[in-house]
């Protein structure tokens, strides 16, 4: 059989690039938890565990297999409250330049123009999990705004408020930002292949720091793509069947 052309072997989907970058951000963690409706972070956590040969522990909310919790829904939050969860992921209908996230509504809260599902565990986990990675695929002035309409969870807190955790980075379909808590500000860390700094500026509603040279986000290696498309894809089917089918072309065996 003729082998596939080289460029095809090395082609990858945006979701695969993001999962690889997020796995890198997770870094050295003992326990990574992933909340509702977060297939890319789930893929990243499972990728980190495959690379780490079984570590970190991964807890996927809503999963039976990727969870060791036996004490009901509260165990995740109690675990986080004690500092036993090192990394978590949050998103927002709006995210602003100070790391505030909005999972509730656009417009006036009492009479909103747009209503989102709700705040989930954000206004707790954002405070107690050391490494919160913000994740928002749509990178536009609609989603990345100067000031959110509703603060589901604030990016930073006053000095006397208990705050063991908070945002470390924001990843979008165009780029990766890191977050500086002391300065309450994002900095552009890298721009994904095929995207440009000017484009990021144009589509971002908040101001951010920008180094003179902005690197291109490293593409996933063939080995990373292999792990994502086999071991990770197979584990994602349980709770993200649509995503696993669309991105990795794998389906649940009947």
């Amino acid at each position, binding site marked *: 059989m003729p082998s596939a052309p080289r460029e095809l072997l090395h082609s990858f989907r945006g979701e695969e690039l993001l999962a690889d970058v997020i796995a890198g951000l997770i870094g050295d963690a003992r326990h990574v938890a992933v909340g*509702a409706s977060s297939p890319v972070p789930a893929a990243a956590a499972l990728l980190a565990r495959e690379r780490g040969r079984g570590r970190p522990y991964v807890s996927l909310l809503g999963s039976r297999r990727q969870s060791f919790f036996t004490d*009901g829904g509260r165990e995740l939050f109690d675990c986080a409250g004690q500092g036993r969860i090192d990394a978590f992921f949050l998103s927002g209908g709006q995210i602003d330049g100070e790391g505030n996230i909005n999972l*509730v509504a656009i417009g006036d809260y009492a009479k*909103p123009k747009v*209503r989102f599902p709700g*705040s989930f565990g954000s206004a707790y986990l954002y405070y107690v999990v050391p490494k919160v990675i913000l994740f928002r695929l749509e990178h536009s002035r609609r989603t990345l705004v100067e000031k959110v309409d509703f603060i589901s969870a604030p990016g930073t807190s006053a000095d006397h408020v208990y705050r063991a955790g908070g945002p470390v980075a924001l990843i979008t379909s165009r780029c990766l930002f890191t977050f500086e808590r002391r300065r309450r500000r994002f900095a552009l860390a890298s721009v994904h292949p095929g995207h440009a700094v000017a484009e990021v500026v144009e589509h971002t509603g908040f101001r951010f720091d920008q180094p003179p040279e902005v690197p291109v986000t490293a593409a996933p290696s063939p080995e990373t793509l292999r792990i994502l498309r086999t071991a990770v894809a197979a584990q994602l089917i349980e709770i993200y069947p*649509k995503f696993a089918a669309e991105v990795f072309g794998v389906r649940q065996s009947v």
Partner: protein
Amino acid sequence: MIARSLDEALAVITDGCALAVPREASGGAMAATRALIRRGIKRLHLIALPTSSLQADLLIGAGCVETIETSAVSLGEFGPAPRFTAAVTAGTIRVKDAICPALHAAFQAAEKGVPFMPLRGLIGSDVLAQRKDWKVIDNPFGNDDPIVLLPAIRPDVALFHAPLADREGNIWIGRDRELATMAHAAAKTVVTVEKLHEGSLFDDPTLAAGALGGFYIEAIAVAPNGAWPLALADHYGADAAHLAEYARMAASADGFAAYLDRHVHAQRAA
């Protein structure tokens, strides 16, 4: 305690009652929810522990809900919950926005019989700003350490679906322990189950570890496939084709009405 019919078991869920339901992953009593809609239940104060999906969306769309307390309503992979979204933007329901651990903690306060529970986080959020019933105090054991207090949530009725019940009224809930918390917190608990277990769940220590005592249970109805079209974890998966159809139909008020006609009003409880 084992009711003769689903409707008989649901009799304690009356108009205007504070009804607690669990997150989808723990066992949504969907056959019971359709029966409540057929009955035309009204003015529910629906409390999700801590989120809801199709169950809340159906009840809201059918006009059964006055207030919902929840940390989110969403159809997950099938997108936003269309009737919840429409009702909130139209101003036809009241939402008490919470967060997941706050709801868990408030139910735990009720199960302990104490008036409130403290919780980290929340300070500086608009979730807290909108909740006049939540308070911030200075930690009495600390030094300049503000912390939020949440009043106990004591629902009138908790409703969920579980795999098994025995004839003594004990329920097997496995590792979905928030179902026990819900039952402990609520004044009354109604459960639908897949099937009856012969003998006592407490005779087998393996089953007993995942059991909830019949002491807490008001009524049980056998409803095979009672979580459909949602999954019952470890028993059957979600009906993805049906959920996709729901998301499509419920996108408009007319489509939702057609869905109710076809899948709720035209059906009888199993």
